């Protein structure tokens, strides 16, 4: 999918969102007697979003929109992989605990960004995976008194 196609798709989603906001705003009530109701502000915001998104689609279709950035396969793969890794972290944290989860997440993200490891790099990542959760324990759990999610080992 080209960047221009993504641009149109994104503008299309925002156009639909704008219409959804307007639809709901009318249900909430535009005015209550002489005063503005809960739907007053959303109606104008939804209209604005829909109109501007429609303009963005027209500009993209007519070629008036120039985009410099591209969705290259390599960076997209890395972004999606990190997104998936963080999602797994969110799902596993209640079971394994937040600090253990972070210790596992660090080498995974490092591997996604740089798949080829040297011995020095592996040692550096291993050290970070150990030291970082300990530092976070002292900063968040001890100093800021944040009740971090604990796993079966108590951290």
């Amino acid at each position, binding site marked *: 999918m080209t960047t221009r196609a993504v641009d149109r798709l994104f503008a299309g989603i925002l156009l639909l*969102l704008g219409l959804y906001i307007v639809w*709901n705003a009318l249900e909430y009530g535009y005015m209550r007697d*002489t005063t503005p109701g809960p739907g007053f502000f959303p109606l104008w915001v939804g209209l604005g*979003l829909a109109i501007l998104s429609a303009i963005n689609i027209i500009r993209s279709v007519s070629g008036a929109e120039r985009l410099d950035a591209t969705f290259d396969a390599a960076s997209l793969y890395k972004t999606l992989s*990190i997104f998936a890794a963080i999602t797994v972290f969110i799902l596993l944290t209640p079971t394994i605990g937040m600090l253990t989860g972070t210790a596992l997440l660090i080498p995974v*993200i490092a591997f996604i*960004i740089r798949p080829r490891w040297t011995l020095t790099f592996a040692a550096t*990542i291993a050290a970070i995976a150990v030291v970082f959760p300990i530092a*976070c324990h002292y900063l968040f759990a001890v100093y800021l008194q944040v009740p*971090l999610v604990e796993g079966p080992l108590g951290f």
Partner: protein
Amino acid sequence: MEPLLLLGEGIVRATTPELLLATLIGVLVGLVVGVLPGIGPAAGTAIMLPVAVGFGGAAAIAGLAGIYYGAMFGGAVTSILLGIPGDAPSVMTVIDGHAMAKRGEAGRALGMSVYASFIGGVIGIVLLALLSVPVAQAALAFGPTEMTALMCFALSLVTVLGGRNIIKGFTALFLGMWVGMIGLDPIAGPTRYTFGFVALFEGVEFTVIAVGLYGLSEIFVSLGQETKGTLERYSFTSLLPNLRDLIECRAVLVWSSLVSFFVGVVPGVGSTASTMLAYATAKRYSKNPDEFGRGSIKGVAAPEAANNSASYAAMIPLFALGIPASGTTAVLLGGLLMVGLQPGPLLFATNPEFVWTVFGSFWIGNMMLVVLTTLLIPVLASIVFISGAILYPIVIGVVLLGVYSIHYAMSDISIALIAGAIGFVMLKLDYSPVPLVLGLVLGPLLERGVRRTLIVSEGSLSIFWESPIALGFFLLTLGVIFIPIATKRVAAFRALRAIPPSQ
């Protein structure tokens, strides 16, 4: 002179161990943020926001603001030594700073960048102290109608000036305002756009979105970018103050600081545009304008004094009017709200001690930065070469734990992740995330202002143009939105007419 006395008292209060530590951490993080090309001051403050708020009160804001102005110092290091601007406001420093470094004067350029930043900071802080109270007092005369009009004006300025694509800027603004509406209606009570999720009843937390949009999305965009280049050499003694350079640049230092401060006060202009203007002014009035671009010491002094001065100028609309002038100050506004303070004209009357302590911490931070930048230049220059595979896992770890620490909710991490993914797509498609964040912060305030005003007028819109001040702001808003569009149309029409008919 009362403001300067109050600033002096604030400086004394800012020397408590807690505030000194918060300021030190802030400026150190700011220096690192400044040298890293992938992460800007807005992302830096957003990533550290949940952690900083844990310090509480003035310490939280001192730490966060430290990241902002610390980044202005740090940005010059890579600009001069590598020819790569660490952040946008240091882009003009590359031109003459790197040219000086290449001819063996890296130390002289670095030294000037540090002292110019310090002088710009001093002038900026003094002007901030002198002008913020009169601005706040003038704004006290504003009722809900005038504040609503002012907010519209500020939002339009930031959206038009903040990004390259005006239409997409406003699209992002409306999207942000909608996200700000999710949850309980602030006046009438029913829930809106919650999709049945109880977690959304209290609305979407600004910080969670800001961290995702600024922090995670910038990391996603920066993936795969490795910094390459050769560091220019310098000696430590060459970093020490060079009296001859300072005397030669004295007028440039003062003028650049003043110009960028008064331009930087305007919402949306920001440090980068102020820096460019200061550089252009310095070149315009120089006796030897041809030296600029070839390694002129004044070409380093002007932008470095300017970006620091402008960073303090942006604090005036934030503290005195409650309106963020940029993406970074929007995050600071979020920080102020999280520590239980509503920035705006009343803040100076209700919490003067807090305001002046924070301003005092700016002074302390500015002095810390002179010493820290000089000592840490070798470290800062090497940080830029740290692989993203080492740096980003750590930053993502801080983001995840920081976001969780706001409400102790794993669902916040999911929201930040989604915001990061949306921010990544937006950045790629030329939608600036700044208007979205501003819409999220100011949208609910704007809605309350509009609806309260209309409740007073019993639904009559004429109340908005019966106030001359409000009418003035609305006319300015229309001008800000439509003049650039009309100018572009006229330019396109002229270009079309200039083409010979045979083509």
